[in-house]
């Protein structure tokens, strides 16, 4: 995916100014930056929730696809169908639905029952539910959330919700997974779990991952590349090691402690 000179403003606030960024197939890219730097806005632009005023986001679904698809004028659901899934900073699950239903919704684009077949149930809809249920159960196994399958997600603790949200995104079988602070609010143990999930998703399922995260330990350890935003502009971009010692990054973001 190639992002070029993307600019996004809200009234007077410039959330993004001419940000260009490349997301390479199969990598884990971390996006870091101070609070309010525009990281979430960047993800929102990719998934079609924000309409940037300028710039382009080109997505290349297949390796040999030179042309690519322009995302900036597309609806979020179209973008999802292209294979781009995400999680949210503040957990945006369907609170009154069970974990299972949340994950099954992730399968939405892969299913085809309509009102009629759904209402009639016997036949297509039932077969389909069973089929996709199997896929979802696999994800449930993978994320180790078997015991809470049938709980409404609204009553789960924060950490579990984060996991369910990851599961929902996975259920979409995306090519690119956008994660907005997936480990916020977790203790080290849980972060380790999460890190392992992300690595597995990346390595075993071959999913490209874009990750916003403030825990530098995590960022340094699992990402292949890091991009840094500050005040809506990209100030650096490179391997974790390069970024760690980048003076602008230290000044704007890390502080001395992490240097």
């Amino acid at each position, binding site marked *: 995916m190639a992002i070029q000179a993307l600019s996004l403003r809200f009234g007077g606030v410039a959330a993004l100014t001419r940000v260009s960024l490349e997301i390479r197939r199969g990598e884990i890219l971390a996006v870091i930056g101070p609070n309010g730097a525009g990281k*979430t806005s960047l993800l929102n632009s990719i998934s079609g*929730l924000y309409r940037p005023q300028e710039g382009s986001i080109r997505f290349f679904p297949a390796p040999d696809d030179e042309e690519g698809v322009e995302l900036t004028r597309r609806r979020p659901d179209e973008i999802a169908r292209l294979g781009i899934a995400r999680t*949210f*900073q503040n957990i945006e699950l369907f609170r009154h639905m069970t974990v299972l239903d949340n994950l099954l919704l992730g399968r939405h684009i892969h299913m085809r029952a309509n009102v009629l077949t759904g209402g009639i149930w016997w036949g297509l809809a039932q077969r389909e539910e069973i089929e996709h249920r199997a896929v979802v159960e696999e994800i449930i196994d993978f994320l180790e959330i078997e015991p809470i399958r049938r709980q409404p997600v609204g009553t789960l603790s924060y950490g579990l919700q984060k996991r369910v949200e990851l599961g929902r995104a996975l259920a979409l079988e995306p090519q690119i997974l956008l994660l907005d602070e997936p480990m916020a609010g977790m203790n080290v143990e849980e972060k380790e779990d999460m890190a392992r999930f992300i690595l597995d998703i990346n390595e075993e399922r071959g999913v490209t991952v874009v990750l916003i995260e403030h825990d530098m330990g995590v960022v340094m350890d699992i990402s292949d590349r890091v991009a840094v935003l500050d005040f809506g502009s990209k100030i650096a971009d490179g391997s974790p090691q390069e970024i760690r010692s980048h003076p602008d990054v230290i000044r704007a973001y890390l502080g001395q402690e992490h240097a």
Partner: protein
Amino acid sequence: MDLFIQLTVSGLTNGAVYALAALGFVLIYKSSDVINFAQGELLLVGAYVTFFFVAQAGLAWPVGVLLALAVAVVLGVAVERTVLRPLIGEPIISVIMVTIGLASVLRALVTAIWGPVPRSFPAFIPRDEVLILGAVVSADRLWAIALSILMLALFSLFFRLSNEGIAMRAVADDQQAAMSMGISIRRIFALAWSIAAVTATIGGMLLANIIGVGGNIAGLGLRVFPAVILGGLDSIPGAVIGGVVIGLLEAWTGGYIGQGLNQIVPFIVLTLVLMVRPYGLFGQEIIERV
């Protein structure tokens, strides 16, 4: 041209009556997110209570009106105590439903006490005709304009500047978080309902002055819904301007087209306006950040 002026003036002034009725709606919504389906019944109670003090008990009207306003405050507090308090933190839609129940209770009370037959209202609000640009209007409508402007100013300042006003908006945003600020939801609800009942009493008085005290005052509760939405559910200036715009639309369609189309033209215009401005003319956007 004469016709146009007459229609415009009468639409404007009638709109002010709508505005007064709409204000209570907005106040309750603004402080608790609740659509009050009993707003019309609050108007009704207000009108009858004033009627009681001024016409039946024979008090001088300033005293009667003050007493009626006091009753409104008591009513607001009573509603909070009996109905809203147990529902704090429950789904808003349940609270909305409860206002439907409340409407029945209030209507029953009023007919039980005052009977079903409408009566004329003591004429302490002047009803003489006044000429404006050659158009005739009744003085009570001018009162409606004055009062709605006054309340507009009063409540706008209240919500912007006073701590209680800010607390009310906070409660509407997030009850639990507001509780954690030490804001007493009960107090805020009682306050909101009292204020709404007070405006309803004022609106009810004016309305009774125009159409008499009777059950159909309550009908205005839902009729002002378009005005409220057009202005923006949570906007006080919106309620006033929405009321006026709807009043004008009704007057023009009534005068030029007729056919009872004035019942639906406001809705059509309103829907079109909303397609351009989904939160009404002045309503605040629902914030959806992810």
